[in-house]
């Protein structure tokens, strides 16, 4: 039961990264591919319909974590207090940027929200990546495994007294920025036309190469830093399929893109993100919150809610998730297949 919830939790986390990550990635690229007001308006239009449902995943992640692993919520949210607060503020800024930019036609107004949208998207990607980095690297839990608190940074080293940011988590943060930018560029490549599409297509090539390199470094470092990854790989050698699948998907994504199958390329990139996060989950299992000293980590079994709660939760969670899948299918199917540069509204 705990393992099932562990999978469901990582599943919706990955779903948020794939769906919400798209509009974060688009935000990162905002100034790079949108060089004038008309182009930036086109960029915003392409995600305007979907960003809110995408962001709702965050609420569901919070709720699911709460119901299945209350101890994880208690430990990690209070332990990363400052970072969580920052993320919450960034989410507000970004939402305003997307929704308000084109409500008033005025150069100063749109400039303000362009910057808000771009800056909040970049910082959000760094924060989410750094958070993932923290989970991989492990947090300073003590022997009772009860309380920890991480400031933003200490000395950027991987000591026993780390902050949220050290060189490893910053690296994961940067990797996330690149990965989401790549994912977002694929979206723009498919859903836009004109200069925005051309620039995205040109950027994609470089983004892909950079991503492969930094991602490789991250995977290597994670394997070295987190002993559980090696333990799990030895115990369950089949797990190697997951990172291999991620690699294959990334390669496939490139070849699809080169053959001009833009939508499939975007979907393949989404699958590769799923596979990357699945590999991470596989590597960390059974820890939901690994510690610097491995045996102090919080496992799914220790963090889980009482059995009854887990069982009752499952009764509605699965139908709920199916319902959400229907909403998503509906919203995405109602979306135009192209957001052209020129429209009169």
């Amino acid at each position, binding site marked *: 039961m705990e393992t099932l919830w562990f999978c469901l939790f990582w599943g919706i986390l990955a779903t948020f990264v794939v769906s919400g990550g798209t509009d974060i990635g688009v935000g990162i690229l905002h100034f790079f591919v949108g060089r004038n007001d008309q182009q930036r308006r086109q960029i915003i239009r392409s995600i*305007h319909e979907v960003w*809110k*449902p995408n*962001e*709702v995943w*965050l*609420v*569901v992640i*919070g*709720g*699911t974590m*709460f*119901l*299945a*692993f*209350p*101890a994880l*919520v*208690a*430990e990690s*949210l*209070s*332990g990363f*207090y*400052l970072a*969580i*607060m920052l993320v*919450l*503020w960034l*989410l*507000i800024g970004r*939402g*305003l940027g997307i*929704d*308000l930019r084109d*409500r*008033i036609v005025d150069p100063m107004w749109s400039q303000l929200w362009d910057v808000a949208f771009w800056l909040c998207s970049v910082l959000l990607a760094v924060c989410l990546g750094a958070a993932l980095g923290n989970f991989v690297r492990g947090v300073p839990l003590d022997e009772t495994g009860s*309380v*920890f*608190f991480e400031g933003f940074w200490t000395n950027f080293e991987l000591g026993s007294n780390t902050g949220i940011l050290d060189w490893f988590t910053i690296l994961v943060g940067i990797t996330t920025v690149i990965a989401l930018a790549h994912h977002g560029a694929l979206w723009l490549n498919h859903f836009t036309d004109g200069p925005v599409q051309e620039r995205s297509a040109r950027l994609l090539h470089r983004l892909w190469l950079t991503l492969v390199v930094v991602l490789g470094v991250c995977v290597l470092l994670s394997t070295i830093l987190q002993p559980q990854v090696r333990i799990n790989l030895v115990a369950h050698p089949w797990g190697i399929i997951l990172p291999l699948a991620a690699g294959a998907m990334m390669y496939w994504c490139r070849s699809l893109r080169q053959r001009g199958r833009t939508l499939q390329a975007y979907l393949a990139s989404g699958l590769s993100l799923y596979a990357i996060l699945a590999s991470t989950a596989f590597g960390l299992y059974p820890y939901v919150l690994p510690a610097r000293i491995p045996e102090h980590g919080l496992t799914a079994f220790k963090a889980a*809610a*009482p*059995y*009854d*709660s*887990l069982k*009752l*939760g499952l*009764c*509605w*969670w699965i139908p*709920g*998730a199916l*319902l*959400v899948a229907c*909403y*998503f299918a*509906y*919203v995405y199917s*109602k979306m135009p297949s192209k957001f052209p540069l020129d429209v009169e509204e």
Partner: protein
Amino acid sequence: MDPAALLNRLQFAFTIIYHYIFPQITMGLTLLIFLLKTMVLLTGDETANRAVRFWMKILGITFLMGVGTGIPMEFQFGTNWSRFSALAGGVIGQTLAMEGMFAFFMESAFLYLLLYGEKRLGQLGHWMVSLLVFAGAWLSGYFIVCTNAWMQHPVAYRILPDHRIALTSLSGLLNNPWAIIQYAHVAIGTVITGSFLMACLASFYLLRDKHDEVARKCLALSVVVGFIASCLAAMPTGDLTAKQVYKYQPAAFAAMEGHFHTQDGAGLVVIGQPNMQTMTLDNPIIIPDALSFLTHQRWNAEVIGLTAFPPDQRPDFVPPLYYAYHIMVGLGTIFIAIMGLCILFLVLGKLHKHRGLLWALLLAVPLPFIANTAGWTTAELGRQPWIIYQIMRTSEGYSQNVSTGNIWFSLLGFMGLYLCLSFLYFFLMVQIVRAGPEPAPQPSAKPVEMR
């Protein structure tokens, strides 16, 4: 009191009070928009459709603010109240996750279509979408009230040997009798806010002789709905809520009524200032025996007073609790009076020309926000000193690993950010109100202002 506990409470209170400005508008407006859209569908009324398009713009901005300020609420359980979350997560996590899954997705997925999809969907489709957004907003409210109701009146749970709380029945949690009554009262409160907001802008336009058709339509609808809601807020939902508090949280009831000493034939305090040194009321105006009648339907029945409870079982801020409750009840009475008068003149067909009443409606718009906030303040201060009634104390619930310096950091951050949001919201509202509803289509050659 423990300064850390107080600071955590302050941050939660500040962020939730600010957040709740927006959902009460959203819940109220989605109902009114749905009613307008139903009119459009049934009668093909183009004026109502113009009103729908106007109110949708306000709904869109308000919903955005609600989402932005709402996501921090869910995460603050974990950041600031981690010890509470660790014990109760298995129960309240259920309703919080359900809110996201069943209500919030529906609301956010269809809101865009409501705002921009009228042409794409056609009238029937647009009506359906307005129904779905309305249902999503109201369902969302139920799950949140359900979460709060469990903290007010825990049901369907079992405490494990390690003090964690397990849920024993999903339907028990969702059918918590407290939640049903509380939700009815809360939802009615949001309808009052929505009605007053609609009436306010309609009055504004009528006083300026602008957008006459749309404004009159909105005025009539908001006054009818507002009058019904104002009555329902007092009877039966308000009455039932008060009886429920008396039954399950007698100490809270005594404190909010300003009823210090147990007595037969207790009077109902209308005005007075609680004096916590002498445990009496200063300058009281009291209706004799009325409190006994309201609680027991007998004029001479005994009503338990606050001093009957040991000090550590009493709410810790009695005067604010007392005032919050009395402000809510007082304003509720004023709402019935204003809306009652308005409906009288509406029936006579004179409301849209009655400048006095229009001015009253225009200026009354902050009052329902105050009343709703005061109502929630009553519920939350009344539950103290418990975070889960009779199970866990608030002082045992906050995160011990977060220092007060860090809470000040986030509290000030929220205050600064929300200050900016307020300016922004106000600015956008002014823009929308200034632009007004779209003018009537051309065949009626005269401009709308002239009629």
